[in-house]
């Protein structure tokens, strides 16, 4: 939960000015919740066997993170300090349950496969972290952007991991065969490690490494 202090903006800045864009862009790369803060790893390992699962999970986290940020930020001045974590949890779990119910109604197959992991968004450290570190101190507009940014930052890493795992583990991408049959006939086999959690762990490690090598981040 690195609370990067963002300088207060002038009250009369435009809706999507430079500062606002920075709020969204920052968590995508420089302050990425997975690669930089190493949060939300548990679900990143569990739901990245297929790209469609990762996408739905990413959308869920983005929606919940953005809406929870806005809600908490709107009522931040009224929340008693003693019970603020509980209030945050109630808001987050409410939003997650709504998302789960909608999935069950309109994407039954995926909701079955994501099983407990949609419910576990409640305990995703990224969301709690953003509420505590950002929404409790900032106005709703900026909190919304921060929530979207962090959700997308989580989502793109998930999708990259899932794409690699699906291609090498199952020879498919989004459920369509991409590895040609001819390759299998000449002796190519799917990599079983990619289907299992350790494969995701290794991939995630490599992604964090590459991301940090490029962005030049050094642990202090």
């Amino acid at each position, binding site marked *: 939960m690195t609370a990067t202090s963002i300088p207060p903006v002038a009250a009369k800045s435009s809706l999507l000015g430079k500062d606002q864009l920075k709020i969204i862009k920052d968590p995508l790369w420089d302050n990425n919740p997975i690669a930089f803060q190493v949060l939300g790893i548990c679900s990143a390992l569990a739901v990245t066997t297929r790209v469609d699962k990762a996408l739905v999970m990413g959308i869920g986290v983005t929606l919940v993170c953005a809406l929870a940020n806005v809600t908490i930020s709107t009522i931040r001045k*009224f929340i*008693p*300090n003693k019970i603020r974590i509980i209030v945050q949890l*109630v808001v987050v779990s*409410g939003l997650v*349950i709504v998302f789960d119910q*909608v999935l069950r*109604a*309109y994407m*039954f197959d995926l909701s079955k496969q994501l099983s407990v992991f949609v419910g576990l968004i409640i305990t995703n450290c990224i969301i709690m972290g953003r509420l505590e570190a950002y929404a409790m101190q900032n106005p709703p507009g900026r909190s919304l952007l921060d929530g979207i940014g962090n959700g997308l930052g989580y989502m793109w890493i998930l999708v990259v991991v899932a794409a690699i795992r699906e291609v090498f583990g199952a020879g498919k991408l989004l459920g369509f065969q991409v590895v040609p049959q001819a390759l299998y006939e000449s002796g190519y086999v799917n990599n079983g490690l990619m289907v299992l959690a350790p494969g995701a762990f290794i991939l995630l490690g490599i992604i964090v490494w590459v991301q940090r090598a490029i962005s030049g981040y050094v642990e202090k």
Partner: protein
Amino acid sequence: MNTSSNGYVMGFAIGVCVVMSAALALTATSLKETQQAAAEFDRQKNVMMAAGLVAEDDRRPRAELEKLYTERVEEVVVDTADGQVAAGKTPKDVDAMKDAADKKRFRVVAIAKGPDGKPQTYVLPISGKGLWSTIYGYLALDGDLVHVRGVTFYKHGETPGLGGEVENPAWRAQWQGKSILDEQKKLVGVIVKKGTVDPSIPADKAHKVDGLSGATITSNGVTKFVKQDLMAFEKYLAALRRH
């Protein structure tokens, strides 16, 4: 305003809870019908998957699959007490009896037909206790009513990755071709073994599938309820075999 006084904290907590529960109740009730329709379609798809009418990852649109179900699958109600088809009862009647004491007496068998309209596979509902939950599934038998065509488990609350592996397509594929009767025509069902099946042992090869590692109780539960349910259907199946 003193936001740390006990009265304020209490009031705020109650307010948050009331607003949240109202919002959740509203979502749940408004989505209920769509969810039930989705669950019913999932059930139909599982019947067709067990019967081999559709593949695991069939990408055809829902309307097309629903049409296929009405065309190729016929649901009949079987009275397991005498093994006869209970004339005059519909699957809806069976649903309505789910709270009755003898709720497992009348059961719905789905008969999947070939393009020529002749019965090809018989899909039997199976259900019973795993470790945490009741597992629901379908066991499809070939036209000879001895060999397994396929199996699916569509509703359960077992641990994902352990008992939840009953859904694993690779594991379920092992069920195909297993014989539910032994050489003396005695019912044995399909046995989920502890460990892996040794194909050099004839009894293993004919009746057993690999155990689910880390899920002994789920495995034993599946073995037990598959046999119980087959036993209940045995009168019906034996009558069909004589034809």
